[in-house]
């Protein structure tokens, strides 16, 4: 029985990761909201390079939420956004200039999930492509 069960158990990590990815994907289908941020660029070996971004509710347009009220308690105080090391300086300047927003998939009662970062109104991927030129 051990010879039959063990190979199945070895696929447990694969199954676990697939279920995890599916669950996270379902959390990204809700309405998109944009929230202004401020932050800095720390270092973390286990996670790679990321920006430590604090939500700036004062600079956020609350009309995108129900009753024009920002649901501050539904969000954490700060979030991580993973970036490449070579883009950290350019992005830090934009964050300091206040031209960066985090885009969340948000539905009341569910954990908000980051889906994008806007730099000067453009997606982060477009921003780094322009920076690379």
């Amino acid at each position, binding site marked *: 029985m051990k010879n039959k069960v*063990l*190979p199945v*158990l*070895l*696929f*447990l*990590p*694969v199954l*676990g*990761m*697939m279920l*995890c*990815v599916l669950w*996270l994907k379902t959390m*990204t289908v809700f309405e998109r909201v944009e929230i202004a941020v401020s932050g800095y660029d720390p*270092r*973390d*070996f*286990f*996670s*790679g*390079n*990321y920006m430590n971004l604090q939500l700036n509710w004062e600079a956020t347009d609350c009309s995108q939420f129900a009753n024009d009220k920002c649901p501050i308690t539904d969000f*954490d105080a700060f*979030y*991580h*956004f*993973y*970036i*490449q*090391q070579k*883009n950290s300086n350019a992005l830090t300047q934009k964050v300091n200039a206040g031209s960066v927003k985090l885009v969340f998939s948000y539905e009341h009662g569910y954990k908000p*999930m*980051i889906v994008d970062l806007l730099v000067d109104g453009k997606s*982060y*991927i477009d921003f*780094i*492509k322009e920076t690379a030129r």
Partner: protein
Amino acid sequence: MADISDSLKKKVYDENYWMMVLIYFASFLIGLGIVAEIAFNWELIPDSVKLGGALAALIINAMALIWAMKADKKILTQILACVYAFLIMGVIGLVGQIFQLKSDLARGCLTWSALSWPLFLVAPRLLWLWLPIAFIGVDGSAWQSHVLQDEVVRSVVNGGSAEAVMLPRIVSVYCCLCLLGAYELWVNFKKEAQDNIVAKPLRFWSAMALYTVYLRMMFSLTLVETEAVKAVHDILLAFAWILPYLIFAGLVWALNKHYNRKSFMPLFLGGLALEFLITLAFKYCTFHSHHLFSGAGIPVVFVAVLALYSRHYKMSKLLRFCYFLLFVWFVSVWQNDIFDVIPFLIGCGVGAYLAYRARNKRWFNIAVLAAVLRILGHYADVDNLQFFGIYLIGSGVLLLLTILLLKKYGKLLWENRNEK
């Protein structure tokens, strides 16, 4: 009793066992390199490609592992299991990057432990890796330093007690120790564990000590310097660390006596408890802010245990003393300055020469490998993750080559020595 003593000596002198440990370490470096490369975060590759590639790598590895098990390829099975463990870690990191999840070491460790536990059914030696990571995951979640610090300060400021905040954490430490201790005792006293009376507890309690170092480092770096938190820290040391070790030392000693078995574990646990008591005492001396002294405590305990073990080695006292000094120096004054590396390499050279003169192959190999590890450590640079990943993979390969060369050409060297 004589049978146990002979099997103990066999295990201690089993060079292949120690070489396998180092092969695992080399696999660990290669695996860590893979993790670093993933952490480098290749943004321009679509997420679906990254995820698909990672899951495909897991599936291929799992299939290769199953094939190696069925083909009875023992060493390949161990290596593939080790790489699989690190691949799982890498994929967890990748998923965190893709979905922009907050980096949380404890939660990551917990996820990894939950997913990877079948691996040590295949490679029991992976328990070395699994135990401390699972421990960090389970208990680290309760001991997240920034959360704990804020909660304690908030509790004290609002008129509550620091102990009320610390109590659930202390309970979680006890629960973790009980769970791990129960598992270790079950493994230790199973019939088939009779010839591993030292190896299994050595692995387990080394993992426990590693976890303790991690806990202590966390606290010494993050505690707020107020009188209330200092007092809580001392309570934590006294109850969460010292007492469980003493209890388990007593329990294992009683079980050993009942089953008429020898084990150094009670001594090791008692030594750890003593070390924490010394650390506590240091807090109230002028040296209390000097981390060198508290940081050197754990390695000193390790080396003391090794020194006790070395009764079985036919080594000169001078050689033993050299290695004692080298090890304490290695851990306590680690710096990435070339002027620290060169004396260390000279020390390794002297140690290798003394071991060669004493016809002690094991310590000769240790000296050579320590030198290689120190050189690798000197060139480590975490700032650039991409190059660090390549460096780690290269280091793992270099270490594997060194082990291979020691095995292959070491025979010629020692045959030549024995003829003289």
